[in-house]
């Protein structure tokens, strides 16, 4: 450290004053670097100006607090900041596209969107549903098990932070190829297989230990995830809406409850707002927290009792930024300031400096504000559950943040300054990718192709991982991720959360990173459409969306340009489908020595199933039943699994005709409500052929399809069978329901294309009438199960 910049204060504990009064620009930048603040020069200068006006230097506690509050992770500078693109200026990506879609749809059933720890929608009998999805990419890259486990723990606390009882978890993961060549792995980078084992185990452990079923998810493999593992953790909660209390006032005590505070998780948020490097492990290992799910289980019990007895006035989780963001944001939200005695915080071990205590991200901690008259009752509840809880300060009417340690003031800042960082201005450019459509002859027979596709990592069964997650605990999982004896891949999970209601909750997701290599706009559009159609397929409706972006460094204009494109698609498709966003999060700076992450948008969809008894599963039900394809097939193979299998990317990325799609979805929902749909499966990776195979392999039956029945056939069988055009389904309808079903679907793209057969074979006739696929269901199942099987 440069001695003249960092002045040790004469205190019994570690406290520094940082000499910004006379610091040059160069020195300001050096301060940011040396303290690991990840602040820009513009921001450092704003800090300098503020403290110069006060006529003093900031302390290390103050600088660290500012850095946490202003971090990309906490403040979402890119989404809220200005973006210059071509000659235009976007004042805020979030306001212009994401929030605007919700505002225009104006759904009355949205209770709280984007403002709290989780989005809240109404459900039934006075209950609401809370939903939140987070990313935990950087920690999982450094320490896969701990990073993923604490990702789950964090998102569960977000749901607790709106007083909701967590009832289901989701996880969507992205890894590099499991057979990645070790020799090509850059120094300091972990092998995808190691990351895969650690992350999946970490996810399972946390959810299982807390007794929350992990019901929906996906695993996606992409080369770019080798250096940038992608870990999305989601949680769904249930709450009585009249217990949703947020009425903290000056004078209320600030209580920290749960785990003790240690040095684990220092600088997690600033770490998450920087690129990964060879040295990430060495430098940032302390940024990864240690998970203790049992602590959080106890904490949950106590919080739920405090909620039911209405003893707290607000709660929030201690996540990114630790106490610094939880306390700051709580005070800000209720128009208060706060005084905190940092020496009261229970520590794992002695010797932490005040700034470390204040920004530590140690796990399993929640913050509560409690009216003083309820303190005793609240403390008794925590004690009964064996949870440590401590009042560390209180909310004040003076809008200042005042922190002390052993009686010494270590920070004193105006709330207004803390929550008004200089607005970031970034530049974006739109750079069309140079891609071409491949030319190759059509294979004579597609049986072998289909068998290989079934085994492609992005299509293959994820059973070996899903079985590590308890998806049954709580006994409310009505439609499971793995269906029946053959563990068929259901499109969404359905939960029945209330004992006295048949209403269900459909949880699904959509993600198509490969399309983003061609055009981020259509990638995002496809993700939304996929999440929605997965939900519709099981009987979901009134669908709410959560958006989670994983992108590269937004300082690089072309990365930001593709982010803008994706946000535009979010607005366009969500408004057309009338599916509002209720919550979202972004994880930027996903860059490693192997390059940037493939821009990835995960869309999580939460829909309502009016009666779980109407839920539709994927498996073929009875021989002789008719098979219909819903939605139009276009020659859209760009980014498809079929092209990938042949070593191509292509250009013809699947588009979304959203207005048309909405009409199809409404009709399909009607057909499901009428009870005419026996089985339904969405068409996604691998297209029609893979969907048909999956419907068959989930049952004991087979299927026959005849492509000549299609209204507007494409030129080639392979393109027809493997096109990944959006908004399509394969449906099973009983012969006796033919008329009523066709009447409901009138005017929509809906073609009878074959039937379910007693013989367990998948037989597909091509345009010329010849058999192009003929495979036994047992072989299809074996190919599909082999790739990621734990036995392999």
């Amino acid at each position, binding site marked *: 450290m440069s001695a003249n910049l960092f002045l040790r204060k004469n205190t019994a504990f570690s406290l520094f004053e940082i000499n910004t009064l006379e610091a040059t620009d160069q020195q300001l930048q050096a301060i940011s670097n040396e303290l690991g603040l990840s602040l820009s020069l513009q921001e450092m200068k704003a800090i300098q100006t503020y403290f110069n006006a006060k006529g003093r230097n900031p302390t290390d506690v103050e600088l660290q607090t500012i850095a946490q509050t202003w971090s990309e992770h906490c403040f979402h500078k890119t989404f809220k900041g200005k973006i210059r693109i071509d000659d235009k200026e976007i004042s805020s990506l979030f306001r212009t596209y994401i929030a605007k879609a919700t505002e225009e749809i104006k759904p009355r059933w949205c209770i709280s969107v984007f403002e709290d720890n989780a989005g809240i929608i109404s459900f039934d009998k006075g209950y609401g549903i809370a939903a939140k999805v987070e990313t935990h990419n950087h920690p999982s890259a450094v320490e896969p098990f701990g990073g993923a486990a604490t990702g789950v723990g964090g998102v569960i606390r977000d749901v607790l932070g709106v007083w909701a009882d967590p009832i289901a978890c989701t996880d969507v993961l992205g890894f590099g190829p499991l057979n990645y060549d070790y020799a090509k792995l850059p120094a300091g980078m972990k092998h995808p297989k190691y990351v895969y084992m650690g992350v999946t185990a970490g996810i*399972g452990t946390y959810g*299982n*230990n*807390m*007794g929350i079923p992990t019901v929906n998810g996906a695993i996606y493999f992409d080369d770019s995830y080798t250096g940038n593992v992608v870990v999305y953790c989601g949680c769904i909660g249930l709450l009585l809406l009249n217990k949703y209390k947020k009425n903290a006032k000056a004078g209320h005590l600030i209580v920290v409850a749960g785990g003790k505070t240690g040095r684990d998780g220092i600088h997690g948020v600033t770490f998450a707002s920087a690129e990964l490097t060879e040295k990430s492990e060495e430098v940032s290992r302390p940024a990864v927290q240690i998970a*203790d*799910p*049992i*602590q959080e*289980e*106890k904490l949950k*019990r106590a919080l739920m009792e405090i909620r039911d007895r209405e003893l707290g006035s607000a709660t929030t989780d201690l996540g990114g930024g630790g106490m610094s963001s939880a306390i700051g944001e709580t005070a800000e939200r209720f128009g208060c300031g706060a005084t905190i005695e940092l020496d009261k915080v229970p520590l794992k071990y002695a010797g932490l400096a005040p700034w470390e205590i204040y920004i530590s991200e140690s796990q399993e901690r929640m913050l509560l504000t409690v009216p003083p008259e309820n303190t005793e009752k609240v403390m008794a509840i925590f004690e*009964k*559950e*064996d949870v440590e809880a401590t009042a560390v300060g209180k909310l004040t009417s003076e809008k200042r943040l005042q922190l002390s340690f052993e009686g010494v003031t270590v920070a004193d800042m105006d709330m207004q300054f803390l929550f008004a960082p200089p607005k970031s201005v970034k530049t974006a450019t739109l750079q069309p990718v140079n891609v071409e459509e491949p030319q190759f002859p059509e294979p004579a027979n597609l049986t072998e192709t289909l068998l290989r596709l079934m085994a492609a990592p992005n299509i293959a069964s994820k059973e070996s991982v*899903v*079985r*590590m*997650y*308890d*998806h*049954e*605990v*709580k*006994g*409310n*999982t*009505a*439609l*499971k991720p*793995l*269906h*029946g*004896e053959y563990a068929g891949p259901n499109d969404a999970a359905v939960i*029945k959360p209330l*004992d006295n209601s048949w209403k269900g909750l459909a949880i699904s997701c959509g993600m198509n990173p490969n399309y983003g290599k061609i055009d981020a706009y259509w990638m995002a559009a496809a993700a939304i459409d996929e999440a929605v159609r997965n939900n519709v397929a099981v009987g979901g409706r009134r669908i709410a969306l959560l958006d989670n972006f994983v992108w590269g460094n937004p300082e690089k204009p072309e990365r930001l340009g593709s982010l803008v494109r994706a946000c535009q698609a979010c607005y366009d498709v969500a408004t057309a489908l009338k599916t509002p966003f209720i919550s979202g999060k972004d994880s930027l700076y996903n860059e490693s020595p192997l390059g940037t992450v493939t821009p990835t948008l995960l869309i999580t969809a939460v829909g309502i199933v009016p009666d*779980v*008894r109407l*839920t*539709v*599963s994927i*498996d073929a*039900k009875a021989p002789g039943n008719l098979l219909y394809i819903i939605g139009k097939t276009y020659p859209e193979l760009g980014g498809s699994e079929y092209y990938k299998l042949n070593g191509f990317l292509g250009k013809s990325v699947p588009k979304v005709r959203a207005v048309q799609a909405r009409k199809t979805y409404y009709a399909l929902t009607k057909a499901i409500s009428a009870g005419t749909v026996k089985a339904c499966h969405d068409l996604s990776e691998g297209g029609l052929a893979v969907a048909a195979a999956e419907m068959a392999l989930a*049952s004991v039956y087979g299927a026959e399809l005849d492509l000549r029945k299609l209204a507007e056939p494409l030129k080639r069988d392979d393109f027809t069978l493997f096109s990944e055009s959006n908004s399509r389904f394969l449906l099973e309808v009983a012969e006796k329901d033919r008329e009523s079903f066709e009447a409901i679907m009138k005017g929509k793209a809906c073609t009878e294309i074959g039937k379910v057969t007693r013989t367990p074979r998948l037989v597909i006739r091509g345009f010329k009438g010849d058999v192009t696929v003929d495979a036994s269901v047992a072989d299809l199942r074996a190919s599909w199960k082999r790739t990621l099987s*734990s036995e392999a």
Partner: protein
Amino acid sequence: MKREEIKTLIMRVGGTNCDAETQRAFRELGAQAETLHLNEVVKRRNLMDYNALVFPGGFAHGDYVRSGAIWARLVMAKLGKELKAFIDEGRPILGICNGFQVLVEEGLLPGFEGVSAYPEASLAPNIRGYQCRWVYLKNENRGNCIFTGKVPEGKVLRMPIAHGEGRFVLPKEKEGALLAKLYENDMVVFRYCDKNGVAAEEKYPVNPNGAFHDIAGICNREGTVFGMMPHPERAFYWWQQPDWTRQTQMTQYGDGKLIFESIVEHLAKRC
């Protein structure tokens, strides 16, 4: 005793997580069921107010040391005397999953010669790690176990398992003799089998954890203490079954209900 007078205690500690659905199962059958933290039971000293006790599933105290070990020691230390009296009076004790592990760690099961001071068996780590899947169970009990009173001998039931440590094992050098003893005293209750009732012969995944002799659940000599790895509370309603969407006739309940029904009926008759 009338059904509505039956009082069941679902005990929990930090990390227990299947209490709500277990409580729901008893209430659905018209019995009273209350969930209390061990700390509360110790404070109120009210164990003997209940007619039946359940140790539900979960990860009590994180299952550190060995699954169920810490909870078992706490119960024996703080409620040992009451628990002994509870057993001596023949009041039923059910352990599901983590609860089964607790009963073994407490020395209540198998209990070859009554309550043992040390665990006589173990629920060891699964051969293939943590598993969540539906399995078939064959009732091999000849009538001693009160928890299967409603299940005919030889009947095949279907329920899910979800555990990482459920491989029932006996001391290797005595396993043959002890198994004979289990049969002799009619303590074997459930064995993993295929859907036709053919024993798994310790083959995965029909036997999901590698349990010795495919044992999924056992009771004590008196038939009043019973532990099982599968979760009957997750197979209580028809809509919890993994393939109910295939069924043309929806049945009102799943197989797990029979376990709770047996307890309630036993208590209703007995008192």
